[in-house]
Structure formats: structure tokens, C-alpha cells
């Protein structure tokens, strides 16, 4: 157990690509957390996927032993946060375990949308902020300009802004001193009943569920009988330890300390992130205030290509759910795709990552259906139901209105792109909220936009139309009625539920036409003509036909050709196996991806 006055708990928050992981590496290096042999770039990004994509997905914690030349020894707990807007909720859950935050801003790029969003989260959480300009080594760095920007936008005293280069290490020593000097020490008495917040967890195949937690009051020792206050689970503390970042067992953790807990539990689902751990024999009266439970906003069906893999898909989802509280699912059956799960995600990146992790870590081959937002549907009998899948949309006669989720979207862009961005927002049914100049060169636009419009390609279009200079953040801003219809796709006159989508009435025709054209290009010719139709109810709005195949035969087959012909046919047969039979029509997997990519613009 350590003296709380010698502990500092902090996070680094930043817009994506502003250098958070590199700074974390430098801090680990300066505090000798790893010897040089173990040092590799971006140590905290442990998942393969994070390294490949260069983004941070999961929050992680590491304990640094810092010797201040003037003040002596300190324990610094660095709690990493993800940088993508999809994962805002994980930022807030990391912040709940900290007293302070390093707000990292790229000295060339300046303040971006997520800089602001994350800074607001930290301020709301009562955290002390240390503003830091990064990438001083870049020729394009303009720290004086960005310093003024930070000061004016966030109301921060410019003299408190530090300057570093995470790449070269310049200024990192000063930052470590500032962390000790400016961030408050954790409060909390070791004599009070134990309260510790579980802020992350993962599944280890040997040890079972491993929780990351932060102790607020009391002590958590190996062997203690514990109670998880929200779930009511009573479990023993089999092992308690700290992450250096290697797991090192300790006798106990005291107030302000951050570490891990192993209870021996193997069953996923018995431990929830956000829960408070206390002692069974001396329970605390109230749980630690956690953070907002994340709500999934985007839904998509995940189906195993091979129907026998359904149970393995369920296991995979359960494991991911353990440290991804935002992931939800319920069983779904599709006439086209068989049995699978309707999964809820925070956004498209989250969806992509979950899918990739399932395929990579569990060796599953999956088909995902077009993502859809969750709708609230007001029925004629006055009831309101949530619809997460287009196929569940009640009949026209049974519903009074469809309400869709809206987001408050905040975009920061160079002023030369203001008109372009406003056009883009209008095309996506956005309505203007406010417009504010951050500086003569940069403007902040706040709009209200239906989530469905953001889900489909909005971010890519924003990036390309502003040559990557605009940044974006968004948050939920309620549900409102819109003029929405369901566009169904019929293959050979049979509706394919997996291709249905709920879209705005004004865009339905263009959407249906494009989707049908794309499908015609991707569905191979079959033994018979295959009509592809887009329909709203019984009204067909677009139609294409895949003409029947007329020739599919090897011209020659003599003695010497037989082995070769068989090999060729075998290869073609393997290609056919990867097709899905929808009724009597063979549809390649790519068709389901095409649906994800089509929007009406």
C-alpha cells in the first residue's frame, strides 16, 4: 500500500493522431517501466488490430515509478484512452479513475473536434487539465498560434501550456514534473470500507477474467472476500497486482492505487465493467459513481457463413463483451442468412473492429448485413417500440410515425471549406445550430443531423471534401419523426431480408436504383434470369435483370486434359462454396458488403 500523497492518476486525451501513444511510450521509457529490449513502439497498444490500424481501441493502465529530482519518488498511474469518436464512452470511463488529464494537441494541426469533446469530458468529470503541445519537432509546428487557440477556445491560461516532442523526448521531463506538481493526489482513507471501480477487464485463457480497477477508499488485499455491488457476485481476491506494464502481484492495493484483480471467475458475464468492488465482511454503503453506460447506436446482423458456427459466434461475442460494454446483441434469424445475432455498436468503426476481432481471434467467417440505426416507432395503438432491424418495422397500417435518432454534430474546419461543409451537411438532412469562429482561419459549425446520415459515408465525404482538414465529433441529441420508408430488395421475386434498409423518402428512389445496379454487377449469371427489384411495400421502384447464363462449358476434353480440367473445376467449385444460396439464387459474399457501401448520394 502506498501513501496517497505520492500517487498521481492521469490519462492522456487527444484528437486522433495527435501523438498520444508515442507520448505514452516516452513516459514509460523515462520511468524505466520497460528495459530497452522490451521497448517497442506503442507498447500500450497491445492488440494486433491496434498496431495495424495505428489507433487505440481499448483503455489500459500502467504503473510508472517516477523519481522526481526535487521531490523524491512517486507512483504515476497512466490510464490510456482510445482516440476515436466511436469510443468516447471509454474515455469517460478511464477519466472516472483519474484526478487529472494531459490534454495533448498537435502543434501543427491545432485544436480539433475531439480535442474539445475530450476536454469537455474531463472538465465535467472535475479533472485537472495539463495542456500540452506536441510535435514541436515538425517543421509545420506553430506552437504560438496553437497556444492562443487553446487559450481562447478552452479558456486556459496560456502560461500553463507545456511544449513537448513525444518523438524526440524534448519537454517530457518537464511534463513529468508538472504531473506531480499540478495534479491533485487522490483522496480516500485506507480505514474506510473498500470501494474500487472496475474500469476495464479482459479474458485470459489461463487466469479467467482479469479486472482493471482503481481503489477509492479502503484496501484490497489478496485473499479478501469481495462483493461486486451491482451484480451481487461474491468472489475471493485470488490475486491482486499492479501493471508495470507486466502484471506483478502485490499484497494489497490502497486508496488511489490502480491495479488488477483475478477472482478465478471463468464465466464471462459475471463481472461487469463499471461495477464497484467492496468487501463482503465490511461492505461500503454506496457504489462509486461510474460513468454513463454507453448506448449502441448502430445495429447490424452478424451471421456465420457456416451455420454450424453459430455457438462459436455466441462465445466470441461473449468474450468481446467482457471488455467492451458497448457491444450488445440478441439472436436474430434471417430467411436469407439463417441464425445469427443482431448486434449493437457505437459506430461503424466499432462495428468493423468487432467483426475483425471475431474473424481474427475466433477464426469465424462472417456475413454482416447493412448497418441500421435504431428507430423508435409510434404505433397506431399509442405504444412506442424500438426497431433495430428493418425487417422488424411494423406494417404501414400499424404505425403512426417513425422517429429516428439525431446527433448534434460539431465540425471544426478551415474557413475556406465552410461552404463545402455546409453543403455536405444540407445534403445529409442537417439543420444548422450555430457557427463560431475560433480564429480568423478556423470555424466551428454545430448542426443537428440524423444519425443514419452520419453512419453512411459521411465521415469519408467530409474528409475528402476538406482534404482531411475538417474534424468531427458528435453526441446523441434525441429522436424525432422523419418521413422514412423501408426499401426492400427482391431477388427472383423473393424478398431478401438482409438487403432491406430504412431510408428517407426523398432518397429512397436513388438508393434503390443504385443498390439494384450494384447487385446486378456482382451477382453472377445463373441458370435462369434473375430479376433484382427494389420496392417500397408492393411498389417496385427499380429493376435490373441478371440474364441467364448461356455458356459454361470447357471446349475440349481429351486424354491429357482430364486431370487439368478436374483441377480447374475443383477451383471453381471452391469459389461457388463461398456463395450464399438465397432461395434458388447464388449470391457471393461481396453482395452483402456492397449493401454496406451504397448510399443515395
Amino acid at each position: 500500500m502506498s501513501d496517497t500523497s505520492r500517487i498521481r492518476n492521469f490519462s492522456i486525451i487527444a484528437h486522433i493522431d495527435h501523438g498520444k501513444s508515442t507520448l505514452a511510450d516516452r513516459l514509460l521509457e523515462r520511468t524505466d517501466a520497460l528495459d530497452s529490449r522490451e521497448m517497442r513502439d506503442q507498447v500500450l497498444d497491445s492488440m494486433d488490430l491496434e498496431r495495424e490500424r495505428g489507433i487505440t481501441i481499448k483503455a489500459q493502465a500502467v504503473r510508472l515509478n517516477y523519481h522526481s529530482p526535487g521531490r523524491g519518488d512517486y507512483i504515476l498511474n497512466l490510464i490510456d484512452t482510445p482516440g476515436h469518436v466511436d469510443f468516447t464512452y471509454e474515455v469517460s470511463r478511464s477519466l472516472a479513475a483519474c484526478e487529472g488529464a494531459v490534454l495533448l494537441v498537435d502543434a501543427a494541426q491545432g485544436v480539433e473536434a475531439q480535442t474539445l469533446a475530450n476536454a469537455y469530458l474531463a472538465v465535467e468529470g472535475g479533472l485537472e487539465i495539463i495542456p500540452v503541445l506536441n510535435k514541436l519537432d515538425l517543421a509545420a509546428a506553430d506552437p504560438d498560434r496553437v497556444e492562443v487557440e487553446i487559450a481562447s477556445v478552452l479558456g486556459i491560461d496560456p502560461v500553463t501550456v507545456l511544449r513537448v516532442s513525444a518523438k524526440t523526448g524534448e519537454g517530457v521531463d518537464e511534463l513529468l514534473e508538472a504531473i506531480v506538481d499540478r495534479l491533485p493526489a487522490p483522496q480516500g482513507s485506507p480505514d474506510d470500507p473498500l470501494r474500487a471501480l472496475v474500469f476495464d477487464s479482459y479474458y485470459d485463457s489461463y487466469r479467467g477474467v482479469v479486472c482493471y480497477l482503481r481503489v477509492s477508499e479502503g484496501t484490497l488485499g489478496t485473499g479478501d472476500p469481495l462483493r461486486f455491488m451491482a451484480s451481487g457476485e461474491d468472489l475471493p481476491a485470488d490475486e491482486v497486482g499492479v501493471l508495470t506494464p507486466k502484471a506483478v502481484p502485490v499484497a494489497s492495493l490502497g486508496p488511489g492505487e490502480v491495479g488488477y484483480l483475478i477472482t478465478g471467475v471463468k464465466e464471462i458475464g459475471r463481472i461487469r465493467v463499471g461495477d464497484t468492488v467492496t468487501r463482503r465482511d465490511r461492505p461500503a454503503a454506496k457504489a462509486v459513481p461510474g460513468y454513463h453506460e454507453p448506448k449502441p447506436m448502430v445495429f447490424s446482423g452478424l451471421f456465420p457463413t457456416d451455420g454450424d458456427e453459430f455457438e462459436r459466434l455466441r462465445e466470441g461475442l461473449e468474450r468481446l463483451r467482457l471488455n467492451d460494454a458497448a457491444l450488445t446483441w440478441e439472436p436474430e434469424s434471417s430467411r436469407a442468412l439463417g441464425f445469427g445475432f443482431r448486434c449493437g455498436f457505437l459506430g461503424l468503426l466499432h462495428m468493423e473492429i468487432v467483426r475483425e476481432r471475431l474473424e481474427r481471434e475466433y477464426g469465424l467467417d462472417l456475413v454482416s448485413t447493412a448497418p441500421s440505426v435504431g428507430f423508435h416507432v409510434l404505433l397506431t395503438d399509442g405504444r412506442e417500440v424500438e426497431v433495430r432491424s428493418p425487417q422488424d418495422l411494423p406494417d404501414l397500417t400499424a404505425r403512426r410515425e417513425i422517429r429516428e435518432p439525431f446527433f448534434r454534430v460539431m465540425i471544426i474546419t478551415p474557413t475556406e471549406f465552410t461552404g463545402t461543409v455546409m453543403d455536405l451537411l444540407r445534403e445529409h438532412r442537417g439543420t444548422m445550430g450555430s457557427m463560431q469562429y475560433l480564429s480568423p482561419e478556423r470555424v466551428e459549425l454545430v448542426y443537428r443531423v440524423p444519425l443514419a446520415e452520419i453512419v453512411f459515408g459521411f465521415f469519408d465525404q467530409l474528409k475528402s471534401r476538406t482534404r482531411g482538414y475538417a474534424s468531427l465529433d458528435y453526441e446523441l441529441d434525441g429522436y424525432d419523426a422523419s418521413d422514412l420508408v423501408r426499401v426492400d430488395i427482391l431477388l427472383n421475386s423473393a424478398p431478401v431480408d438482409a438487403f432491406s434498409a430504412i431510408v428517407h423518402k426523398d432518397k429512397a428512389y436513388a438508393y434503390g436504383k443504385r443498390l439494384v445496379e450494384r447487385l446486378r454487377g456482382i451477382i453472377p449469371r445463373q441458370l435462369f434470369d434473375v430479376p433484382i427489384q427494389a420496392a417500397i411495400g408492393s411498389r417496385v421502384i427499380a429493376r435490373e435483370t441478371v440474364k441467364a447464363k448461356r455458356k459454361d462449358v470447357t471446349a475440349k476434353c481429351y486424354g491429357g486434359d482430364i486431370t487439368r480440367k478436374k483441377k480447374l473445376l475443383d477451383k471453381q467449385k471452391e469459389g461457388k462454396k463461398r456463395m450464399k444460396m438465397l432461395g434458388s439464387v447464388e449470391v457471393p459474399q461481396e453482395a452483402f458488403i456492397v449493401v454496406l457501401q451504397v448510399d443515395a448520394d
Partner: protein
Amino acid sequence: MPTDAVRPDDPGLADEAAAWVGAYVHIPFCRRVCPYCDFAVIEGRDDLRAPYLQALAAEIAADEPFDRPLDAVFVGGGTPTSVEPEALGRVVAALAARFGVAAGAEMSIEANPEDLTAEMARRLADAGFNRVSLGVQSFDPAVLATLGRRHTPEEADAALAAARSAFGSVNADLIFGTLGETASSWQASVERALEAGIDHLSTYALTIERGTPFGRAVAAGGPPPDPDDQADKYLAAATLAGAAGMVRYETSNYARPGHPCRYNLLTWAAGEYVAFGNGAHRHRRGTRSWNVRRVDRYVERSPATVRSGEERLGPWERDVERVLIGLRRAAGVTPGPAGVALAGSPAGTRLTAAGVLAVAPDRLRVVRPLLGDEVSRALLALDPT
């Protein structure tokens, strides 16, 4: 001939051919390799011809005879007429010495129109050949040029006439679907071949093979043959050949009664055949094996080491293969375990419903030969029963 008066697509004939035995001899040399060809061929290299013929003789002498004499011999290439007819006569004699040749056996040879003069035809007949297959390909000069062929339409007329006077059975090979070939050009080519009084017609859809000049052109973004155009031309040829009294007995082959190619009938019936030369494939005792493809390697090696690979088939695979190849014949196949499984499978049901496959208790037939590979893939996807 035992095939006289019998229709080429007669099921009894098709099945009987399974008991025949044959020999294939490969002559790989060509003056120029055609841009669509991916056979085991070699351009020029006159120096290799004598050692190649020696190696052929050695390989023939080292092989084991069947328990009956050969019913059919096929000398193909390459360009068999790139070596002297007398040298080919010695190859035939070597086969006869080692394997025996049945009385009235089919002795077939391939030839290019520009080579088959009346004199050459006579010399080949003297060497023992009674059937010739001419690589006519087209009677359209533009199509011939695209295909890299070296003969004129008039030379093809002359060669067909010379062939008719020297051989008992004459085939013309035609290729359809070449880039730039019109429907009327194709129709004219088929009509002109039929008018020449041929006994047998092979019409092949131009197929783009990897590694050939045509293959590279398509890989580089050039237009591949249009399958709809090829389907139209296939059907046009079928109509014209039928009107001329020819019977389609295999996907791409037509013959007048008494003139189906017996060597091909035996390979399509999964019969046994020996084969000699570089890249040659044989089928004996349930095993398919093949020789090294390169001519120089074939020449260097002893008969014991010329083989470069083999495929042994289990009982199920053998039956799948029998049905697979057999269904290319208009006569179809007896079902057997693989055929019964196919007919009863969901894919088989779909193919029957689509009018591609016809199922009778004692016979399976592909009635839309243009979609034959759909049936083949369904067959290969079956699990052993």
C-alpha cells in the same frame, strides 16, 4: 469397321468403347506456335527432332502391352507433319511391334492445311494412317490472321480435297468466337467445311489460356471472348452440321454415321490408353500419369524416368471421373454410384429442373451441353456415398 451404320451418339457404342485400348503419340514441333495454344509444343529446334524420335521409340519399346491389340492410335501435336511421314511410319511400326494393332483399327493423325498436299497425304496413308484431322480453324482470312495460322482458305480447300482422296475418314477442326469474327463469317466457315465433304467436324470455342499471348492480352485488360456470342455460334454450328447429316456425339464433336473418332470415344469412356512423348498423359489400371513437359528433358531422360507425375484414383473418384467425362457425350452415361448421387442431390434436382440434366433410371444425359460445366462442378462437390 465395327462402328459402321451405328449412329455416333449410340449409347451402346459409347459404353462399348470403355473396353477398347489406344495409344497416343505426341509430336511437339511447330514452325510457329499459335497465340492461343498452351499445349506442350516447341518452336523450331530442328536439331531435337532426330533424338526425339529415338526417345519415342525407346519409350514405346519399354512399355507393357495390353492384353489385346490397339483399337485406335492417335498422333497429335504440335505439328505431326513437321517430321517426315516415313519417320512417323516407323513410330507406327514400333507401336505395332510392341502392342499389336487390331485389324481395321483407327490410325489418326493431325495435320496443318498448308502441309497436306496430295503427295503428303499419300505418303501418310502409306505410313499406315487411315484418318486425318485438319486444323482448318476458319475460312476467314482475317480470323486466320488473328489466330496466327499460316494457311489461306484456298489451301484449306485443297488440303480437304487431298485428304478425302487419301484417307477413309476426314475431320476438320474449327474455332469460333475469335475477336472480330462475325456471325456470318462463322456460319460461312462451317458451311464451307461441310461442303468439302468431311466425315467429322470439331467446333471449339476459343478458350483463353494463361501464359499464352492471348492470355497475356486478356490479363492486360484486353477483351475476353463474349460467352453469349460463343453460345450463338455454337448453336449455329449445331444447326448447320445437323442439316448436313452429322450427329453431335460430344460437346464439341460431330460425325457422320460410321465416323466418330474411336480414339476419343475410348478416352471419353474412361478406357485405357498409353501415351508417348513430352507432356503425354496416359490412363492405365486406374492411374493417370504424365511425362515431363519440356522436349529437351524428355529427350535426355531414359524411358524409366520420363514421367513427372501421376494421379491414383480411388473407386469413388474413378466413378466421378467416369460420369464427368462421360456426360460430355450425347449418349450420356450409366448412372453408377456417382451418377445416382448426382441425380439425387439438391444441385442435381436444380439442374434437372433447369433442363440441363436429363435423368432416366438407366441413363444420365446433359441435354444443354453449353452448360455442361455446371453439371461437372455439382458432381465434384458431391460427398462419397
